[in-house]
Each structure stands twice: as C-alpha cells, then as structure tokens.
C-alpha cells in the first residue's frame, strides 16, 4: 500500500478510537449539545421579546428566533471545537502519545483522527440543535442551494475552529489550560452580528464586530437559511475559514512534533 493509503487507514483507526471515547465519556458530549440548546432557550424566551423589538423593522419573539437560530448553530460548532482542545490535551499529556510516536504510523493520523471525530460530532450536535430550534418554531425559508450553502459554511467553520482548537490543545500542556484558552471562541460571537445587528453597537465596538471573522460567517449562514444571496460576505467567510485552517494546521503540526508525554 502507498503512503497515502496508510495515512488514510491510520486516520480511520484513530477516528474509531476517538468516536469510542465520545461514547464512553458521554457527559462531555451531552454538555456540548446542552449548552447551545440552553443559549437558544435563554435568548428566545428570556431576551427574545425585547431583542426582537429592536431588530430592524421591529418584531417579536418569533422574529428574534429566526434571527438567532443561525447564531446558535455557529455557537454549537464552536462548542464542539472547544471539546477537541480538551481531548487533544488529554492525549498529548498521557503516555499513549509516546507509544504512537514510536510506531511506524502516518504522523498526521493522530491529529486527523481527532479532527474527523470532531466533524462527526459537530454534524450530530448541529442536527440536534437545529431540530430543537424547529420544535420551538424556527422555519428556515430556503431552497436546496441555500441548504447546501449553510451546510458548506458550517463545515468550513468547523474545520477552521477544530484545527485552531487542536493547536490550542497541544500548546496548553495540561487539560485544565486546554479547557480555558479556547473559551474566547464562545465570547467572540457576542461581539458580532450573531445576536444583535452590529449597527446597534457604539462606533468603536461596531467596527470590531464588523471586521471580525464571525460576522461575515454568521451573515453568510443567515443569508443561506433565509434564501438570500450572501454576496461578498460569502467570500469573506470562505477566506477567513481557509486562512484560519491553513495557519492552525501548520501550527498544530509543528507543536505535535515537540509534544512529549508526562
């Protein structure tokens, strides 16, 4: 078999291992899904009436649900990525990483196994959270192209945030640190167009919100799910995801070469 075939086979083996971990450690997986669901309930039922009235053109709780549902999907992606940092840090601080490194396996397979597992978990989590949103009355109004676009942009975002968290998990050096450093990913969406339109913010903050990666990503997702053309936001979103993925992939590979257990 060629090197590429071995790399694919080893990555699949590592994927199986990581999926087993998720099944064996269900509390973390459930937390990941519960968190965005709680956010959804909180923002729709507690803040939704008031925030809905503040949307352009005014509206109610239902309009705010339609505005915020895409943002909650984005938070779901970030939430799963966060857990990847914890899984990676746990692996990198235990003896088994040294075992893998003394075996003739594809070097990248340890990390790709984690990334693939995170993507599977993201797909499950996003489906569950979307189902809850639909139960609450969310009705995305879009066609096949819009759905494909939404799935595509969520997948790109998941890839970018997961590689970022892989690098942060490797850089952390302990599971505790790894569970803290990526927390900014949960906060950044608040300073974007995810929960309120950016033009309702003070000028300086609005500038930051408009120019940070989450805003074009959430605007693209929202446009796709509302059946609108995302326009230039689409290219900004793809660009940001691509840049973050490539940089963090390189960073993670360099860090992985230096990892030593215990």
């Amino acid at each position, binding site marked *: 078999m060629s090197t590429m075939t071995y790399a694919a086979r080893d990555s699949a083996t590592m994927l199986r291992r990581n999926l087993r*971990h998720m099944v064996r450690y269900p509390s973390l997986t459930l937390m990941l899904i519960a968190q965005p669901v709680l956010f959804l309930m909180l923002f729709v039922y507690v803040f939704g009436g008031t925030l809905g009235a503040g949307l352009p053109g005014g509206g109610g709780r239902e309009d705010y649900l339609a505005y915020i549902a895409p943002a909650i999907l984005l938070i779901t992606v970030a939430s799963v990525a966060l857990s990847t940092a914890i899984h990676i840090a746990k692996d990198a601080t235990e003896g088994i990483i040294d*075992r893998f490194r003394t*075996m003739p*396996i594809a070097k990248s397979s340890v990390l790709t196994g984690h990334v693939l597992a995170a993507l599977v978990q993201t797909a499950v989590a996003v489906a569950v959270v979307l189902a809850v949103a639909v139960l609450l009355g969310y009705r995305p109004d879009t066609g096949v192209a819009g759905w494909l676009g939404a799935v595509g942009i969520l997948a790109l975002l998941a890839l970018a945030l997961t590689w970022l968290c892989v690098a942060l998990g490797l850089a952390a050096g302990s599971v505790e640190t790894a569970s803290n450093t990526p927390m900014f990913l949960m906060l950044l969406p608040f300073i974007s167009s995810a929960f309120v339109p950016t033009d309702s913010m003070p000028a300086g903050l609005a500038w930051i919100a408009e120019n940070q990666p989450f805003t074009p990503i959430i605007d693209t997702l929202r446009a796709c799910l509302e059946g609108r053309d995302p326009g230039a936001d689409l290219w900004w979103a793809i660009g940001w995801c691509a840049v973050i993925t490539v940089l963090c992939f390189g960073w993670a590979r360099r860090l992985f070469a230096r990892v030593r257990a215990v």
Partner: protein
Amino acid sequence: MRSDAIEVTGLTKSYGDLAVLHGLDLTVPTGTVYALLGPNGSGKTTTVRILSTLLAPDAGQAVVAGYDVARDPDGVRRSIGVTGQFSAIDELLTGRENLRLMADLAHLPKQDAAARVDELLVRFDLTEAADRRAATYSGGMKRRLDLAMTLVSRPRLIFLDEPTTGLDPRSRRDLWEIVRELLADGVTIFLTTQYLEEADQLAHTVGLLDGGRLVAEGTPAELKAQAGGATLDEVFLALTGHPVTTEEKETVR
C-alpha cells in the same frame, strides 16, 4: 542479518546547561538482554528515548536494528516495541480494544488481528478482563496490557524502561518470566532498571550508568569479579562511591 541489535557511539545529550549523557558507547548483540542499571537521573530514560526515536541526540550515532535513528527513524520504528516508564494504554478503551488498536495500526489483516489479540489476551492472563475498560485494571494488569500492546506487531527488539518499577513482587516475577519467554523466541531486549536483582536475574550484559557515563559494562559475573563484590550493589558502590538507590533521596532533598 546483523549481529548487533543496537550500536551506540558517542551519544551526547543536554537539556540546556544540564548534561544528561556524556558520550555513551554501547553494543547489544542480537538475541540478548542488556540491562542499563543506574540511579534516577543517570540518563537511562534519555537513552531509551533517543534509541526509540522520541528524542534527537546532540551528538553521536545510534544504529538500532540496522537503521540510523537520525536518518531512518521509520525503519527503527518498524523494528522495535517500546514499553515506557509511564503507562501507555488507553484507559477509556477495554483491554481487547487497546490491543485491537495496536493491531490496526500495525496494519494486520482483519482475521490475523483478531487471532493475535486473543492470543495475547490468553498469554498475559487478561482474558477475563478483556472487555472491561482498562481504567478498572490493577497496576500489574495495566503493565501486562502495556507490554502486550508492545508485542502485537511482533517486534524483534524491545525496549523496557523500568518495567517493574512500582510492581508488587509477584507481578515483577511474572514480568521476568515474560522477558525470558521473549528471549527464548530470539527477541532482543534492552531494559533499564534501578533494581540490581532484576539486572542480575535477566541480563547477559549489564551497563552501569552514572551521571550520563557508562562506568562499567560486562556480564553480572564479570562485574562482580572486577570490583571484588558479591552483589551488583557492592559493584556499583565500589565503582561510583555511592549506592544505586540513594540518588532518589538526594534529589528529593
């Protein structure tokens, strides 16, 4: 077939200002047991990490199973098995799944993999616990699983870094028995230990390592004759001026 499983010349390693190995030379003939004996901090683990491709030396050359560790680490990795000082098992997986993981990473065909896993479970007396998570295993069972995982790919050269540290006497004797069986199969074994009895029981050649230097090397009998001691303990004391086991206390203090 080369006659030497390991050839090391002038191996040197420092961590910053701390020199750990000062020009280590040693040779391990194929099919023998070599024990590197020394106190904590003498450079035993560093030597194993370099020979098993986990760490690059600052200077010197190491040829393991015919491959240069610096130039062809993957060649080395295809030939060796390593059981480190710290448990290298996946505690969330069962014993069987841990072994299967190794079989899959060794690219064994499916049927061979299942057969090899069952064979090792029996050999290491883990059949009853096979489908329990490794986290529930006792220290001795974890060590047995760890070694079984190392053996899945049938390596011809095995590194054991302090394999019996922290084990009770019975588990220690079980492990010695396994080492003897491997040797009977023609496997070469490089082990590190702080236990003189272990080196005396198992090794063809003992290297006494102190402060990153090999202070003496030979069969247990040669070393005892050379230093005029009845035990390796006395040999170590005669050659270095301090016993093997006090170093730990000194570093703690």
